[in-house]
């Protein structure tokens, strides 16, 4: 009954490791998009323009309350309807980046709200412009408390990359699926994928904690 085959596991490992590289690239690229776009979404919600901040707020809510896998399909298939063909990688990065930017914008929002009012007043008393206030004072203080949340979502985005396999991005899950159906054996590839995910995401959580305290010390807040 329990027929785990070491030779087969050994044979497919290199292919899975290559695919792990792709998974990491996908997670990294998606995360970069999310980090930047998330900040834009967070800042857009702070403009005095009521209508703009309302629209952005609703958009964020919408993204956060609908399934990522559906969003991936949407981005991938809607393009061709307008004559724009996105390759799986591009569509996948847009979808996953957008999805997580909504989450990160909430993290940043919390960070912004945690900056004491006195910091704004100090900037006014030094006649700093809005841009200077944000760039020099507010954002540097909003980021460190966001690091924990940002880290959680980095791990989150990594664990969500298997969904990209549904549009054919050649990441880990896609490779495991392919191996499984080529060989009619799913035990080893799927189990190995699980182990690889564990081996990466468990230590990451610890590393993120270390990084967080390093950032706080570095920036002089602690």
């Amino acid at each position, binding site marked *: *009954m*329990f*027929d785990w085959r070491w030779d087969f596991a050994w044979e497919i490992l290199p292919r899975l490791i290559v695919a792990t590289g792709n998974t990491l690239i996908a997670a990294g690229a998606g995360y970069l998009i999310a980090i930047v776009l998330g900040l834009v979404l967070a800042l857009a919600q702070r403009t005095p323009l009521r209508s703009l901040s309302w629209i952005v707020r609703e958009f964020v*809510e*919408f993204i*956060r*309350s*609908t*399934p*990522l*896998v*559906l*969003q991936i*399909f*949407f981005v991938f*298939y*809607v393009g*061709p*309807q307008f004559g724009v063909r996105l390759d799986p990688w591009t569509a996948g990065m847009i979808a996953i980046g957008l999805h997580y930017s909504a989450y990160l914008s909430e993290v940043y929002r919390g960070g912004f709200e945690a900056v004491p009012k006195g910091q704004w007043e100090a900037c006014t008393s030094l006649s700093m412009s809005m841009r200077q206030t944000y760039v020099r004072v507010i954002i540097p203080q909003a980021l460190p408390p966001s690091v924990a949340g940002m880290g959680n979502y980095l791990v989150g985005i990594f*664990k*969500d*990359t*298997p*969904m990209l*396999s*549904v549009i054919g991005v050649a990441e880990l*899950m896609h490779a*495991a*699926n392919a191996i*499984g159906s080529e060989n009619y054996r*799913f*035990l080893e590839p*799927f*189990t190995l*994928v*699980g182990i690889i*995910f*564990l081996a990466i*995401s*468990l230590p990451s959580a610890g590393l993120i904690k270390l990084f967080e305290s390093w950032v706080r010390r570095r920036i002089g807040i602690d």
Partner: protein
Amino acid sequence: MAYLEFLAEFGSRFLDGSLITVAQFLLSAALAIAIALGFGLLKLARHWVVRGVATLYIELFRGTSLLVQLYWIFFVLPLFGLTLEKFTAGFLAVGMNLGAYGAELVRGAVRSVPKGQWEAAYALSMSPARRMWRIILPQALVIMLPGWGNLLIELLKATALVSLISVTDLMFEAKQVNSTTFLSIQAFGTALVIYYVFARFLLTPAMRRLELSMARRIGKA
């Protein structure tokens, strides 16, 4: 106009899919809550072996992807002689996965009940089980309800993955409609809106109301 025709033709399929999604949601939510309570409390146990088991479960399910777990349960478990129907495999995977996240919520909430409450219950010579059930859990529940609101939305979204093992839920129907009509905006857009309405206008207000009534029941608010 065109969209109305689209709805007239495919509306019933979206409806069927939605019902399956609701069923998946309810079953996996019930499972997740049970698992969360069980493992969340086990993780607070005094004996390290018990705590270890809980930690193992939680880290295993939080450390890997839901999709991996789903495929494993559906494709690999049969090799061990345990063949599950796809519908069952679907809500089992979702419930077990989200249950692991819920366990952390439960643990955190129980631990943040003030120490004085434990001591007061102890002073009344309550048995540990009684103390947990009558004194600590009701207060912990109020603390963790907002977290559950978010978690249940995550759970609803997670049910969309069961379409990948061909459970005919909302996501599955959207994909089917898309591949027969190539009307992607209509097909996927409709599904997106249904999920959104479900999450934002049913689930969220329901949880809010529950939060309020629970808070009132223990005299906070």
